[in-house]
């Protein structure tokens, strides 16, 4: 497939925003349920939610560049019964609103316990809103992944690994951002977040490599024989019905050499996983905020490359009809 930068920015930015929110809420849960020393850093939650909301909004903005008629975008919420894209269009604003509400609840200090759990833990409005936002965040992850995962003849995408990778890569980048943010605000969560970020980056790397191994030996279900229905081992295209290319030759091909695609693969493994891991490990014992910040920036560039590769890697069966211009 042709990697469109609007969609690359959309999926990486909202993934990071969702991951950042999950990081904030994980921190709050650990603190509120006394799994670690209690945190009273309201600023961290306010700025974190604001940043997550901003990332999601910029992602939403980027997505409009993919549309031919952005002014009709409101129509996209209508077919949620059948279309994962329509579901994403509902889940994305839902995540933005609930994450913003979560930040606002922290800003307004809605900390009065509404009910008390058996362990004596108070459940306040921020916790409830966080819970709702977590549901919205995961719904958005699943919708985003399923947009690609549900197309059965794009065999590179038609696997649960697609959704898992979207969740893991987004979460990893979000926790890395949380590490940098907590270092910048000088709160004591750098070690906590760096550990989680390392964990998620390693798990994401494992699943991404597993996906690449799966896709390396993929057996295409369609070939020229089934495409034109002529049962012969030696079929060669002579003409594709246009002399200067068409939508079909542009939308479904990445247009780069095999060597270029391969180099992007190595680049993203290094930039999205290995380099950030190095800087995250450094930040375990060093609270200088620029160390995790480098990890954030390098990882984001790596994720852009990862998403580019994700699209370029998928081989659409329609390409069988477009192998030879003339």
């Amino acid at each position, binding site marked *: 497939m042709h990697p469109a930068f609007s969609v690359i920015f959309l999926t990486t930015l909202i993934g990071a925003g969702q991951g950042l929110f999950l990081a904030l809420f994980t921190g709050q849960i650990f603190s509120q349920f006394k799994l670690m020393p209690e945190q009273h850093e309201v600023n961290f939650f306010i700025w974190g939610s604001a940043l997550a909301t901003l990332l999601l909004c910029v992602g939403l903005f980027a997505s409009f560049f993919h549309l031919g008629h952005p002014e009709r975008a409101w129509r996209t919420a209508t077919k949620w019964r059948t279309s994962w894209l329509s579901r994403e269009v509902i889940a994305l604003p839902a995540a933005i609103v609930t994450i913003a509400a979560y930040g606002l609840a922290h800003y307004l200090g809605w900390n009065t316990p509404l009910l008390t759990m058996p362990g004596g833990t108070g459940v306040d409005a921020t916790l409830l809103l966080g819970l709702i936002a977590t549901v919205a965040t995961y719904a958005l992850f699943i919708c985003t992944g399923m947009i690609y995962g549900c197309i059965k003849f794009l065999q590179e995408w038609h696997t649960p690994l697609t959704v898992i990778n979207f969740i893991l890569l987004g979460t990893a980048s979000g926790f890395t951002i949380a590490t940098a943010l907590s270092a910048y605000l000088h709160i004591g969560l750098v070690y906590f977040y760096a550990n989680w970020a390392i964990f998620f980056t390693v798990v994401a790397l494992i699943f991404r490599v597993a996906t690449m191994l799966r896709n390396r030996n993929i057996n295409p279900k369609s070939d020229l024989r089934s495409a034109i229905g002529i049962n012969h081992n030696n079929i060669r295209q002579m003409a594709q019905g246009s002399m*200067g290319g068409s939508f079909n030759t542009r939308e479904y091909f990445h247009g780069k050499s095999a060597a270029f695609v391969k180099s992007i693969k190595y680049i993203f493994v290094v930039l999205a996983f290995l380099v950030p891991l190095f800087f995250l490990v450094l930040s375990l014992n060093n609270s200088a905020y620029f160390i995790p910040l480098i990890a954030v920036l390098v990882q984001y560039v790596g994720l852009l490359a990862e998403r580019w590769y994700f699209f370029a890697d998928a081989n659409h069966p329609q390409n069988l009809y477009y192998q030879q211009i003339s």
Partner: protein
Amino acid sequence: MTQLALVIDLNVCVGCHACVTSCKEWNTSGEAGPMVDKYAYGENPTGTFFNRVQSFEIGTYPQTETVHFPKSCLHCEEPPCVPVCPTGASYKREEDGIVLVDYDKCIGCKYCSWACPYGAREIDEKQRVMKKCTLCVDRIYDEALPVSERKPACVMSCPTSARLFGDVHDENSEVSKAIRERAGYQLMPEWGTKPANHYLPRRKTEIKIHKDELERVDNPLSKEERLRHNEPGKGPSLDDMSNW
């Protein structure tokens, strides 16, 4: 339930592109507005077409055969492009099974084109909406046209009658008969899309001529025994008959 479709006979298609040009001519002149043509006289002309003829070479030289393969939307009975549309702009008509795009609802997100394994949908880069074969829905029901012309433009123009049009659910229709009797098949059956359009395969039409059909065995059934006297110069000639 009616399912209108095309049946394309690869045995007689000569790859002349008449269907392509007449399709473009009809559909670019319709109410929906022109189909874009960019750099039509430039180095890399490109544009939106509903129908394209492709050519494939089968076999190894010198045992090769060239197959011309017209390709347009197959109007699948299980169209994978329809449920993915977030706006409902892509839909399959209940009454005749034609898959259409509502150009006023389409947002041009191209997701439906990803969900079509045949590459039958092409975006119009000027109108920025997805376009595809309509089976000339604005022709086939037009009562201003003579009944014989209420067919898609491509079918009308085909000089070898390689394109048949009709209801594939009506087992007595010309298309159903062609599919049934001439081994009609669907493209990429492995995806379960159940294309309504069918293709008829190449057929070898060979006439077996025996030697005795070329060299006449003289009077094999002795039926002309009694006409022996008709040998040249012996019996009555045509002149004798007419000069009575």
